[in-house]
């Protein structure tokens, strides 16, 4: 039985208030078709886990779809600040659970290992642990040394965008995997959007994501645009710049266009 669904069906399975982990890094291989459909379906009160986010978080902020963000960095790198995210935080509509990228990974690893927290070497001298409560100190029962720990981050749903997937959920990431494989293993449910869906008998490369961990596969061509997707396409700088100059128009366009799959 195939795991393939339409984008609308897959997004319809997301409940308001869910904790999502989104794959990719900054403007690279983020599941943006999925994010746009979240906006179209008017999802609310989402919490999102990213290491480094950009258009994904900013668009969800603009659409007033998110309640909180667990991330190390939200911004458009050399193109500037994520203005809608920034405003959402300043207006106290969005809660920032500010992590370091490394502690997002540590929290996800705790989920992978089936343990409640993960020791981490870092944060010495930082005010973030005190300000966020996300990093706390415990005494090691073996050495009696103080060590920082991060609570497990267990996404309700991880969504990643890949180059190729099959009907069983096996998936191949071309280029940098970023934290996607960690997010997949840490989550309760996994949804994959893919540039191309092939039959599981047709693989010519080795998929990194094993299908048994995946609930749903969605065909989403240009699913990471206007960000990049491995060797398939680069960042569409003009489109990202248009978004930054006039995000409201971009949002209207997203809402006005019925998803094409």
């Amino acid at each position, binding site marked *: 039985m195939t795991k393939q669904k339409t984008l609308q069906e897959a997004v319809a399975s997301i409940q308001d208030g869910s904790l999502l982990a989104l794959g990719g890094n900054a403007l690279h291989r983020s599941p943006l078709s999925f994010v746009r459909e979240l906006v179209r379906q008017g999802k609310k009160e989402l919490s999102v886990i990213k290491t480094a986010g950009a258009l994904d978080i900013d668009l969800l902020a603009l659409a007033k779809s998110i309640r909180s963000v667990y991330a190390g960095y939200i911004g458009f790198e*050399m193109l500037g600040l994520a203005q809608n995210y920034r405003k959402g935080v300043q207006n106290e509509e969005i809660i920032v659970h500010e992590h370091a990228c490394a502690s997002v990974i540590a929290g996800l690893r705790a989920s992978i290992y089936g343990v409640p927290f993960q020791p981490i070497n870092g944060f010495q001298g930082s005010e973030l642990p005190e300000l966020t409560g996300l990093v706390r100190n415990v005494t090691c029962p073996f050495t009696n040394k103080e060590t920082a720990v991060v609570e497990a981050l267990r996404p309700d749903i991880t969504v990643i965008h890949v180059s190729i997937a099959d009907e069983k959920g096996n998936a191949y990431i071309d280029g940098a*995997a970023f934290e996607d494989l960690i997010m997949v293993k840490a989550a309760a449910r996994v949804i994959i959007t893919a540039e191309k869906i092939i039959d599981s008998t047709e693989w010519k490369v080795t998929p990194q994501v094993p299908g048994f961990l995946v609930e749903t596969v969605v065909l989403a061509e240009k699913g990471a645009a206007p960000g990049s997707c491995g060797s398939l396409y680069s960042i569409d700088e003009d489109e990202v710049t248009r978004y930054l100059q006039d995000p409201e128009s971009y949002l209207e366009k997203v809402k006005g266009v019925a998803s094409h799959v």
Partner: protein
Amino acid sequence: MSNLKPADYITVAMARLINDGERVFHGVASPMPAIAIQLAKKLHAKNAVYVSIAGGVDAVPTDYSSVSTADASLAEGALAPFTLADIFDLSARGALDVAFLSGAQIDGAGRLNLSAIGSFEKPKVRLPGGAGSAALLPTVKRGILWKTTHDKRALVDKLDVVTASGNTEFVVTPLAIFKKSEQDNQLKLYSLLPTAKIEDVIENTGFPIEKHQEFHEFPRVTDEEIQYLEEIDPKGVRYSEFS
């Protein structure tokens, strides 16, 4: 020489701070470090090991994105994969030599703020967040920070939020290079970049300026450095933080 811009001096200065054989990392929004690493590897640090978010070891990019330094172009020519999670682990166990980091604010102890202007709870401006810095800066052997502006808003007496603290060794700005003093753990003036005067530095820095015991004149940018800089970055992506 006279037509060199601040980005050229900063990039050359950062390249010179990389030692041969060191394992070197930069993160997002870091065009000058990305190019400085390649420059160092052409010159005095041929055996430096380059790791980045793009996930490969010792990439030799032939093109640079002017909008992102997590781009696939920065994995070009890399052989073995090495993910961002691998890089954080490397630093955590004390095996990463250099991390290039930055902050909206940097203080005299070489700490940085990338979290918020104003209070963390009720920010006047919410900033992007420190990315890897809160975990990297205390664990990497040498943190090299840079700023594209040198004024009292950037180099402050007191940070609004301490996002990351730790092993900052150098801070490079359009006016100066600071090095942390082992005596009091404070940044001291290590070099003035060409065209800058010490009065400019004193006037535009929020923390007190003292000369480092290793203070010296910034060695002239060589023809070889300029030639390689042009060869590595003909499009001038190193200028992209200065628009």
